[in-house]
């Protein structure tokens, strides 16, 4: 076995230009790479591009709703815009988001391994994602999609927009998700270094493990649902088509059996990131490690029992309504445990407001609202009033956008120095974070009130009484758009003229900070030592290099 260096050895400096970015040159070396870090970066570029595309659709939707009547889009175009916004954001951005882009990059290094368990499969997942994205672009070019991202039958059977193209795209993206999940499960089981037991693993890996379980168990049911929908359209099989004796409510069971666990695929990695950020930027050991780890698994498993709360008004039987309402409350408990544990971690810490921590705090604020408004939608009586109104739109944007995407940007800033070897500008980072926070709340808080006042969802036009809410919401969406443009600018700027990043700028103790920034091709020359990844006592701030270095050997108190 290889020698184990002590956990506080100084990080081996790389000969200039020998990191994973410069290991080999040329486009082909990127397109056919098996290196998980390069695959992660390629995913990141694809996902940020899709996020920009989805954002354009969102701004168009909000511009149409700025005033009553028709502004820029006809009814049909509006229906296509909100459908494509939903489909692109869920399938292309937020489901692969944190696991595929950042998880791929960080997981093997956190495990002290050279790569994921199946590198070729990892590259295949990326190309499946790209193929799925191409299908979505083809759908965009060939007449769009106007069924909503849920493809409810019988409308999705009889509309003449490119439903088959979109469902085929989602089918392929599903496989990309399954294979990434499988890769992560096997890597976490098989590639943990000696000394890293399950409860010495970083919490981000617990979150990715729980996410992978859902990806593997839920996505196949989406695959068969989409296959049957394609069969409906091409051969009129009649399983979901009421004209042929089929049952549209059965389609909703099929669809939501996947799509509710899918929302936990989206939020769990975000929670994993927040656990890391809160601990590092408070210089405090994480509080309640086991409870946070177990709550990730609990959310993953309970997530499979609750899909019926999307169907309270759909004609689902009253008995199932009651069972699903009761079960859905079980999912809110682990989320509450996590939030309280994060707060307990911050207690008596030394909290720095670097940009990643700004996003972590914004996450706790927005996810707090998102999670608590979920209670209204879980309770039967209030869900009857609130279902399919803007209250639901606001709820899931607070949890998906306010939760997952905010955590994604926090993680992006946290691992930016490690991925690119460059530091971004803290001032611009904090400004953009503040603007995102202001823009987000201006956009979505009015939608809560519009929704509870009865404003239905997916409306191209609205009655007079909802005009005020929509106006404020549209203004908010422009503020958010500006904030993201600012973020894009300063991150791109840092790529070329950012300060050279030290090995450990934030003073974290997970293994990816024990190698250089950007890390070498093979991550570690010899097996890194596995200590307690939330114990920061062995690191001290070195003003010269503006980074954290292991304390001088004599003073090391083990």
């Amino acid at each position: 076995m290889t020698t184990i260096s002590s956990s506080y050895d100084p990080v081996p400096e790389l000969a200039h230009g020998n990191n994973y970015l410069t290991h080999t040159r040329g486009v082909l070396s990127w397109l056919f790479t098996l290196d998980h870090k390069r695959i992660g970066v390629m995913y990141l570029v694809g996902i940020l591009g899709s996020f920009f595309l989805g954002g354009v659709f969102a701004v168009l939707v909000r511009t149409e709703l700025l005033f009553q009547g028709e502004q820029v889009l006809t009814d049909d175009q509006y229906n296509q815009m909100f459908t494509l916004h939903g489909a692109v954001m869920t399938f292309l951005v937020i489901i692969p988001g944190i696991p595929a882009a950042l998880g791929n990059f960080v997981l093997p290094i956190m495990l002290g391994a050279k790569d994921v368990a199946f590198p070729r499969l990892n590259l295949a997942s990326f190309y499946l994602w790209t193929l799925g994205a191409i299908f979505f672009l083809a759908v965009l070019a060939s007449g769009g999609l106007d069924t909503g991202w849920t493809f409810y039958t019988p409308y999705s059977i009889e509309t003449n927009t490119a439903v088959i193209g979109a469902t085929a795209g989602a089918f392929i993206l599903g496989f990309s998700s399954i294979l990434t999940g499988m890769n992560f499960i096997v890597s976490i089981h098989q590639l943990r270094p000696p000394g890293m037991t399950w409860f010495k693993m970083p919490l981000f890996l617990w979150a990715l493990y729980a996410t992978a379980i859902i990806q593997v168990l839920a996505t196949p049911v989406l695959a068969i649902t989409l296959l049957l929908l394609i069969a409906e359209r091409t051969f009129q099989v009649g399983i979901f088509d009421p004209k042929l004796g089929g049952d549209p409510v059965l389609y909703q069971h099929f669809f939501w059996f996947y799509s509710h666990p899918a929302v936990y695929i989206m939020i769990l990695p975000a929670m994993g990131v927040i656990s890391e950020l809160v601990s590092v930027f408070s210089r405090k050991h994480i509080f309640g490690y086991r409870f946070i780890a177990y709550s990730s698994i609990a959310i993953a498993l309970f997530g499979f029992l609750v899909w019926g709360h999307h169907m309270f008004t759909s004609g689902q039987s009253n008995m199932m309504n009651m069972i699903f309402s009761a079960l859905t409350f079980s999912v809110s408990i682990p989320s509450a445990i996590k939030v309280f544990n994060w707060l307990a971690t911050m207690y008596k810490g030394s909290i720095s407001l670097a940009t990643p921590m700004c996003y972590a705090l914004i996450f706790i604020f927005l996810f707090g609202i998102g999670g608590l408004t979920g209670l209204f939608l879980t309770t039967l009586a209030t869900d009857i009033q609130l279902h399919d109104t803007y209250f639901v739109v606001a709820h899931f944007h607070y949890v998906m956008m306010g939760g997952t995407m905010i955590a994604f940007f926090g993680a992006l800033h946290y691992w930016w120095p490690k991925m690119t070897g460059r530091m971004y500008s803290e001032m611009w980072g904090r400004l953009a974070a503040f603007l995102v926070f202001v823009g987000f709340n201006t956009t979505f808080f009015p939608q809560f009130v519009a929704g509870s006042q009865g404003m239905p969802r997916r409306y191209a036009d609205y009655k007079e009484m909802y005009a005020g809410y929509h106006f404020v919401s549209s203004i908010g969406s422009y503020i958010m758009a500006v904030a993201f443009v600012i973020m894009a600018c300063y991150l791109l700027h840092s790529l070329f003229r950012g300060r050279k990043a030290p090995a450990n700028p934030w003073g974290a103790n997970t293994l990816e900070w024990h190698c250089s920034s950007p890390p070498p091709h093979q991550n570690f020359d010899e097996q890194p030592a596995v200590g307690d990844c939330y114990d920061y006592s062995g690191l001290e701030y070195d003003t010269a290099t503006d980074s954290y270095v292991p304390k001088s050997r004599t003073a090391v108190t083990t």
Partner: protein
Amino acid sequence: MAEETLTTAQSHGHGHGEHPPHLAHHFESPGQQFDACKFGMWIFLCTEVLMFSGLFCAYAVYRANHPEIFLYAHKYLDTNLGAINTAVLICSSFTMAWAVRAAQKGQQGLLIGLLALTLLGGFGFLGIKYIEYEHKFHKGLLPGAQYNPTVTPGDHGNGDKHAEMGDHELITSEHDAGNAHTAPPGAAPARHDEEPAVAPTGVKPTEQTGLEKTTLPQAAPPPAGRSMEHDHAHEHGMTGRPNNVHLFFGIYFAMTGLHGIHVLAGMAFIAWVLKRSIAGEFGPEYFTPVDLVGLYWHLVDLIWIFLFPLLYLIH
């Protein structure tokens, strides 16, 4: 889609290892690599089981709520052909398991022979499936809108006198259905839901072509008058045939079609492993691809073990 990615799952095993030949650089020992591959394969099999669970769920829901359709329609299926198919798959599963054993013991000749036998079993299964599909296409026993039976149940395709009339019937029904993209009967039986990537673009099936529109109950009688309960008498149309019998064939073609695709994929992998075993790559210290393809083939057999009684032995 998943099929060819699967091959990468197996091929990762034999990277350019420094010490033992087939050890990938990021694994410590062949044991760790073998366990990782088996574990990854079992996770993949789990996703396959969940994918077919969707079809079993559709089957269960429609059988529970419309038992008369299944009782009536299963008589169209030929139980003997189904039983032969089950036997064929079990034998090819046996030869596959034996082949894995042969690989583990390094018996190259036996390995190659057994893999060939398994491949033959696959062809046999698909051949019988083709006969069954041919009979159904011929007799108009198709899913959904194209359902236009020209044969009474129990007449297992040997009712030749129906043959010519059947074609005529089918042509008209084809014309009525009016959706150009349904595979014309008699042509090679279009696999029911081949890989969607090649599916025709979303041609909108015209709404009312020959289909009975959902006729709403008469408006005149006050709603309370209409019987809500599930009255079986209403179930049976004029000819004693329960309505929506095409649902059975929708589910039949979905299940056996998707299973057929997986048999085809399995045969592709076996052929690929056969080629490599002829090249002598496998032996006691490295036989992972044979083992993984064997697991996949056994899963395909496993699913047929459940499909056979559910579709053919309805009582």
